[in-house]
């Protein structure tokens, strides 16, 4: 009887009663939080922030970076046949590009001087050096990654030569 009830609930609801319970408790807390959040500013602006960020992330940002990655992979395969050799170049570009882009996401107001007037008044210092530092860090990341790549190519080549040579010849 009890088992039947539980199965019936599961069939109609789609999960266990506990699932419903934790969701109801969770939603109650979220409703309280949302009420407080919307007390902190203009409802339209806050909705724009919350929904705008979801749309911007899911429908613009992710398609943009995955699209760029796909484009880059296609280009590299066409332009650099060696990219398909035993030492693929792709991740040696992806890694520094990803890290550089992440730094830009975090620090873009400083790097691109979005907040210059405000920052100068607040801190008493100009917004110089941020763009330069970001470019320098980016250059170092690409250079470091390139050096590691070069090292791997040299080692792979040495290995291939060693494999080809008959035994006993050094």
């Amino acid at each position, binding site marked *: 009887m009890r088992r039947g009830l539980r199965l019936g609930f599961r069939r109609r609801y*789609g999960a266990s009663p506990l*699932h419903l319970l934790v969701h109801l408790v969770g*939603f109650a807390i979220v409703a309280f939080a949302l009420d407080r959040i919307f007390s902190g*500013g203009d409802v339209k602006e806050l909705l724009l922030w*919350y929904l705008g*960020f979801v749309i911007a992330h899911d429908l613009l940002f992710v398609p943009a970076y995955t699209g760029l990655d796909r484009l880059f992979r296609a280009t590299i*395969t066409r332009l650099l046949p060696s990219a398909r050799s035993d030492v693929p170049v792709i991740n040696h570009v992806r890694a520094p590009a990803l890290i550089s882009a992440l730094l830009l996401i975090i620090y873009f107001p400083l790097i691109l001087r979005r907040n210059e007037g405000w920052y100068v008044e607040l801190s*008493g210092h100009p917004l110089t050096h941020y763009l330069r530092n970001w470019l320098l860090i980016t250059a170092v990341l690409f250079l470091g990654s390139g050096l590691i790549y070069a090292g791997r190519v040299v080692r792979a080549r040495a290995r291939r030569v060693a494999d080809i040579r008959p035994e006993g010849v050094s």
Partner: protein
Amino acid sequence: VSVTEAPKHDSNAPVDARRRSRKPESGSSARLPRGPFRPEFWRSPLRGPWLTSFLGMLLIPAITVIALTGFVDHWAHYPELGGNGTVGPSGDIPVVFHFPASWPSWSYAVTQGTHVTLGLVVLPLVLAKLWSVMPKLFQRPAVTSVAGALERISLLGLVASVLVEFATGILAMDDWTPWSFNFNTVHYYGAWMFGTLFVLHACIKLPVVRRAYRERGVLKPLTQSVAQTKPEPPDDGGLAPINPAAPTISRRGLLAMLGGASLTVFAVQAGESIGGPFRRLALLAPRGRVFGTGPNDFPVTHTAAWAGVTSAMTGADWRLTVVGARTVSLSRQQLLAMVQSARTLTITCTDGWSTTQRWTGVQLAALARLVDAPEGAILRAVSLQPRQAPEAFSRSLYGDTRSLLALRVNDVDISLDHGYPARVILPNVPGTLNTKWVSELRFEAV
């Protein structure tokens, strides 16, 4: 080797027939709209329940620490005294923690530095976690049961709140606030929303994590090189690809890349919180630069110019009014003639940066005694700064022997930007509570 002979990694990779046949409802795919709504659109061989579980399990401890240090910051503002630059006490949960007087004065620097730095450091993991579950967004049919609908709603809230929580936190740290809403309210109650939905999501998905770890091993997928990287088998949740492309990176490669990103962010950020010689390493942090070696050449969050305080307001006419059972008016000379205490104290902004200096001045407890402050009175520090509500301090806070009305720093007068003629400085409070340009100290009975 000619280019045309090259195996195409992406567009024409052979589809494993077995995978296709194992896909649930494979016949209905043709009826779905083109593009991301079809499961075969999602081709990354790395996506799957294991990867998402692994990223999620890394995020659980990190988000927990960020949330706890965030609450510690909220309570360090003493919201129960009303205001203090954060959300008011009405409707809030009770304060459950204050830094004990026995803790070193840089404790808040540690918790708030952790809150901000760890928040930045986990951003790559958050973005990767969202990437790993992208196919879910486009799954059709979107909802098959009431339970599924509730989960969808909770996920919309989770993604919206994590993005806004990180965005507001990061932009506020950057000193760029392109919004008109109250940051404190939105960031604090946004954390309630995010935290609740995060816990809910973790509870609901725990069985998925356990199953993924049981089937694939907790760390075993990390032992595979690119060549050994196999897609996870198609799962009920629709994360693993049914039409996987050839791998171009291993799972450990992806995690190494994310870890490299986290380390780089740490390297260019943490120096502004650690201070000392490390500040120069904080190449991109908003308060990471060093502009001189003089006794007053440490950073400020707000300059006197920004606050609207001029040297005309702080000249020889300046008097400090101390109000208790009686009222006393003191010139700077008179304050300097009182017993001076020197303390090494750390200022930490809620933005996460810190600076530790040697401050000299009169103990706040001595000023309380001077005016016979009522037992257990609250101290309100009034600033010359226009339109600035006074900060409030409890007896336990201003009664601490480390709490000063500072007149000098590093053996010279404090500069105008640092709060001349006198500023409040206390252990383990957010920087904003260390009121600058003090004009009045009111010990009010409660």
